Every structure is written in C-alpha cells, then in structure tokens.
C-alpha cells in the first residue's frame, strides 16, 4: 500500500515539475531574440493546444466531432463581424464564443441520439454546410474573398503585437488545459466519462445523459469558438477555408497522436506537430542542395512524409504518446 502511494506521489511530482518547466520555458522564450516567424509558429502551437483541448472536452463525453472547424469558424466570423462594426475586439471575442456555444447546443440537439460514425459524419456535414452558407451569404461574410479581421490592439507595431499575442495565446492554452483538467476531475467530468464508457449504464445510475451530452457540446463549442476568435484576430484574415475538413481534422490528429482522453494529449500532440512540420520546413534548403530534381517535389514530399509519420505513429502507438510517456516517467518497481 505504501509503495503505491509513494509511486503515485513521485509520478505526480515528475509531471508537475515537467509542466512547470515547460511553462517557464514558454514564458521566457520571447525574451530571446527569436524571429517573428518562430513566434508565429509558436503562437499557432498554443492555438492548436487550445483548439484540441476544447475538442477533447467533447470527446471526453464519448462524442467525437469531425466538424469542429464549424465552431472555430463561427467564433471567428462573429467576432470579426462584431469588431468591424463596433471596434470592441475583446467583447467580440466573447460574443463569438457565446454564439458558438449556442450553435454548439443546437448541433448537440440534433446529435444526442446519434452514435459514433453517425455523429462524426453529421458534425462533419455541418462544417461543409457552413462553407456553402458562407459563400452564399457573401454580402455578409465576404464570400470566398473573405473578411479582413481588425487587430486585437490597433496601432501597435507587429513586434509588439506578436509579443502580446504570444502571451495571450499561451494564457489561453494554459487556461484551456487547466480548465479541461478541472472539468474532467469534477462531477461533470465523471458523468462525461461514465457516458463515454457505457451510455446505458450511465443512464441506469441516474445520470441525465442528454443533459450532460448537450453540456459537453456547449462547453466544447464555447471554448472552440473562443480559440477561433482569438485565432482570427491573430491571422487578420478569414474566409470559408476556416471550415475546411483539414481544420476539423487537426484536433483529432493532435489528440490521437498525443493520447486520446488525456489532459496532456493536446499539449504533446501540438508540440510534436510543431516540431515535425518545422523540421520538414527547415530541411528544405538542404534538400534543395542535394538534387535539383527535388525542387518541385519537396513541398509534396513534406506532406507525404508527414502522412507517413502519422501512419507509423498510429501503428506503433495506437493509444498515443501520452500513455507511453507516463509509463516512461513512472519509476520502475
């Protein structure tokens, strides 16, 4: 009994120190003279942590969404439209998140009776319908030409903007990871887990399955909308491509690679995504020197290699990296 609690204690310590270390590193990075581009991709990395954590909240209740880009885009569009008219970006961001949560509730209502692939395809369908709607309502949304998104802080230069945005996105990411931790550990989280494991049993133990499923949809859509709104203000431009299937699949890729239904999954997945993609990008000048024939092929090779990495990781670690890492960090008996 004693050894078990000791193990538990030390494991907790390691993860605690590790996350502490990561946050410290993240906090000090901007003070080194790094290029704006590196800042840019780091900000995107935080954005992906936030986005996949929000997705994870829904997945935690056993509902897998293939169309989360719908919420991302709604958050982004609403804040854009609001800010263009009022120049109050922070309120816009909040309104974007709220509208997204509301739409999440509506989509959730159509989905409560659906399972697995049915649910996945319906959510995916919503994101495709959003593309058509956005193009069709072009007077309002700017159609495919898109909308230019006002900045969160007008009238500061790009270096400052990136500096601020770095901390905003970092805060958002940490906040979303912590809040998912909080929700998952709470009674609500227990209900989510119960529904995920066995819906009928959950019902039998008196859990209001419908209520919690809708709650999961709403919360997840809220945070996704929030992330999307901040993202739009960062990129400065938004068009229908925000609803693209690729955007819907990223949180799934990140979560599955990182470790499904774990808190650290989104973090590990996003960091890994960042490293793989930047690594492939950094290799580009070098690849160009090996063979001139590679010039036109390499951009495609990058995606090809990324795909191959996905395949290999999934085959070797079907449960994702987080459980492997946990084992690795756990002291051997």
């Amino acid at each position, binding site marked *: 009994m004693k050894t078990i609690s000791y193990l538990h204690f030390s494991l907790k310590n390691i993860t605690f120190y590790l996350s502490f270390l990561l946050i410290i590193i993240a906090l000090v990075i901007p003070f080194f003279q790094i290029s704006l581009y590196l800042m840019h991709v780091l900000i995107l990395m935080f954005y992906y942590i936030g986005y996949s954590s929000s997705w994870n909240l829904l997945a935690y209740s056993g509902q897998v969404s293939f169309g989360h880009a719908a919420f991302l885009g709604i958050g982004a569009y609403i804040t854009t439209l609001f800010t263009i008219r009022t120049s109050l970006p922070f309120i816009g961001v909040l309104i974007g998140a709220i509208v997204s949560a509301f739409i999440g509730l509506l989509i959730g209502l159509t989905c409560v009776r659906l399972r697995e692939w049915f649910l996945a395809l319906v959510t995916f369908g919503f994101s495709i319908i959003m593309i058509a709607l956005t193009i069709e309502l072009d007077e309002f949304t700017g159609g495919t030409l898109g909308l*230019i998104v*006002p900045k969160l802080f007008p009238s500061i230069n790009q270096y400052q903007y990136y500096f601020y945005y770095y901390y905003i996105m970092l805060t958002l990411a940490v906040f979303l990871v912590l809040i998912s931790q909080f929700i998952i550990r709470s009674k609500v989280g227990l209900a989510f887990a119960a529904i995920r494991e066995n819906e009928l049993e959950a019902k039998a133990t008196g859990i209001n399955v419908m209520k919690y499923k809708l709650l999961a949809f709403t919360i997840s859509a809220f945070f996704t909308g929030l992330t999307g709104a901040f993202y739009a203000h960062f990129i400065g431009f938004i068009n229908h491509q925000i609803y693209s299937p690729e955007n819907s699949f990223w949180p799934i890729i990140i979560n599955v690679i990182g470790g499904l239904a774990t808190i650290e999954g989104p973090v590990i997945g996003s960091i890994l995504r960042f490293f793989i993609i930047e690594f492939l990008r950094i290799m580009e000048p070098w690849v160009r020197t090996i063979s001139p024939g590679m010039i*036109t092929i390499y951009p495609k090779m990058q995606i090809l290699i990324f795909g191959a990495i996905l395949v290999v990781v999934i085959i070797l670690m079907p449960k994702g990296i987080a459980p492997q890492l946990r084992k690795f960090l756990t002291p051997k008996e």
Partner: protein
Amino acid sequence: MKKRTQLIIAVAIIAIIVVSAAAYYYTTLPPTRTIKIGLVASLTGSAADVGTDMERAAMMAVEEINEAGGVYVKEYNSKLKIELIVGDDKTNPQEGVAIVTKLITEDNVDVLVGGFSSAVTLASQVPAIEHNVPFVITGASSSSVTRRTDKDTSYMFHYCTITDDYSETIVRFLNHTVKPIVAPNRNLSLALLYQNTAYGQGCYQSTVYFINTLGLNITIVAAETFNMGDTDFHTQLLKIKNAKPDAVYHAGFTRDTADAIKQGIADVGLNTLYIAVECCEEPQFYEFLGSFGDRQILESKFGPQAESYSEAVDDYKAKYIERWGVIPGMMGADTYDAIYLIAKAIENAGTLDKAKIRDAIENIEMPQMLIMMKDGIIRFDENHEIDPLCFIEQMIWDGTTLKPYIVYPDELKQRDFELPPGYVPGGP
C-alpha cells in the same frame, strides 16, 4: 518490444530536436550579402499546378541575371547576386501568412514576388504591409489586393492583369467581333460559368460592370457557379443550355475550363462559343482540349503557343523549353518579368533600403518584356496596377495539334475570327 518502442520514440524526439536546432543554426548563419527575393507560390494544395510554373520562371530570371553578373547596387559599389527563396502558401490563407512572415523575418528577404490565389494573397500580404516589404503580386487577379482600404497598400504592386482586364477585353471582343456575325439585330446572349471564388466572382462582377458602363447590347442569360476543384460541370452546362446563350464565358483555372468545354461540347451538346480566360494559357490546356478546342476562344496577355508576335516571348519560350523541357505557362511570365522589374528597380534605387526600393518600383519606367503594355512601357498607375494589353486568341485544331492565333485586337490580329464548327446560335 514495448521498452524498445519507448526507446525509439525517445531517441527520435531527441534526434528531431537536435537536428532542428542544428539546421536552424546552419540556415541562419550570416551569409555574404545578396539580394534576397522571396517568391510566394502555391506549390501544394488546390492551385499547385500553377505554382510550379511560377517557381521555374522565377528561377530562370534569377539565373539569367546572376549569370550576367548580378545587379549593380551603388550602396555596395558592386554587383550583387540575387538569391531566390521560395515559400509555399499551400493555397491556404493561414499558411500564406506563416510563410510570408517566415520569408520576411527569418530569411530577411528584400522584396517579395508572387502570390496566386486572391484570398490567400489578401491574407499573406498583411505581414509584408506591416513590415514595409515591397511585394510585387504576379498572380492574384482580384483588384482588392492593391485597393484594400483597411491597410496601407503603398508597398504592394500588382504586376499582372486583373479580372477587370479580362472581362473588359472579352466583352469588347464579343461586341466588336462576335455580335455582328451571330446577333446583328438583337442583344447577344452571354452565359457565365464561374468559380465561386474571389477570382471567379470578380470576373462575373466586372463583366456586368463593363456591359453596363460601355452600354453594350449584351444580355447575361445565365450565371452558374462551381466550387474550386470540381470536375463535373454537366448539370450547370445543362442549365446554361436551357438558357440558349450565344457564347459561354468560363472563368476558372486550366483544369476546370478544359473540362467544362469538353463536357459542354461532347456530353451536353451545347455547341456554342466558349471563352476561357488567360489562367488557362498552359500547355496542358491545349493538350487536354485537343480537337474540342477547335475555334474556341482564349483571352490572354501572353501567348507562348501562338504564332510569333513578340521576340521577347519567343526567346523566353526557347529558353524555358531548354531549361525545363516543357512549354511555359502564363503565371510564370508575370513572375519572370517581375524579377527583372525588381532588379531594375534596385539598380535604380542604388540601395537595398526597402523604402527606396519601393519608391523605385513606383517610379519605374522600362520597356515591356513578356507582358505587353498598351503603350509599351512598364509603369504603375496610382493604384499600383499596370496597364496591360490583353488580346483574344482563337484556337485552331489542324488535325493533330491545337494552336492559338490572335484574332483581336486589330493591331495584333493574325487571323480572322470564325465560328466554331457546328455552332448553334442562341436565342434572344
């Protein structure tokens, strides 16, 4: 097995970090001063086919300038070589912003060139605007990239034809050449089939605009849309057939235009006059169309396949074929010119100061190269746009190959316009 997997993963992660760090360090070593030109092109994604042509053309221009010794810059009192750094925007706004930021802040480019999709360029030009990097846009055909009002576009230059140019040329041609033959006593019925993107919508809107402002007797009887990347246009074409047009204006890319024309003639039985826009000026377009392209129309500004009309084009074509083994496309031509234009501007500025380069580009006056100008001189107007001379080609199938001849305007005319075989005029 499990332990080994763990070990492999750990080693892989560490290796990735180490190699990235090393490569990062390696790529950021201060090199000797060169003129760095960043090319923004779509090398993957839905417009990947055009990006490659832009890249090849840009490489050729850079190689030629470097072989000639480089660009004389007064500030350094020597001829500097040009270094081309290519960034892939993946036909996606988010990636576009990232890659332009990378080109500017990591590769420290002096000038940017390229940009294909209008929507992507609208997003990706923002970092260039913020950092005051001159950007010569050679692909995006929506005028909004230099006329946007929310940002200061004084560093943006639009060195390519825009959708206004396409549509104006086309409606003028229809009115001047086609209407007298087909519908002398009534309004000409025109149908549009356009991509529902910024570019296609631009073509549609400017067509309406020019018909109205020029007061032409042309009626738009149908306007159908399709999604970027679609390959099946049968339903839209059937609907257009139902509207009985005299001509169909297809605003899209190489792939969809060729498909639509072929499907329209072969499958739908819509035997009419098809008008394609210059985006299609790619060797693949002619190959793909084959006999179906007989006596169909292509609006263009650069005709490497046409009968010789300009020495510059002939030279470029020969060099391009020698270097890459294929006939050049249209997108590369703008980019090729733009590189020379930038080199000239830098030489004029005598410095690599970005503001001075911008001024030099703004005030540039040089003889036309591949793209013909109305007055033969490359210069930018107050909107930072050029005034190109567009023309209309008619493609003739001689039994083995499809070859274009210029039929409009009169000063470039190589042949008289003829109606396509089996042409069925539309109704009023």
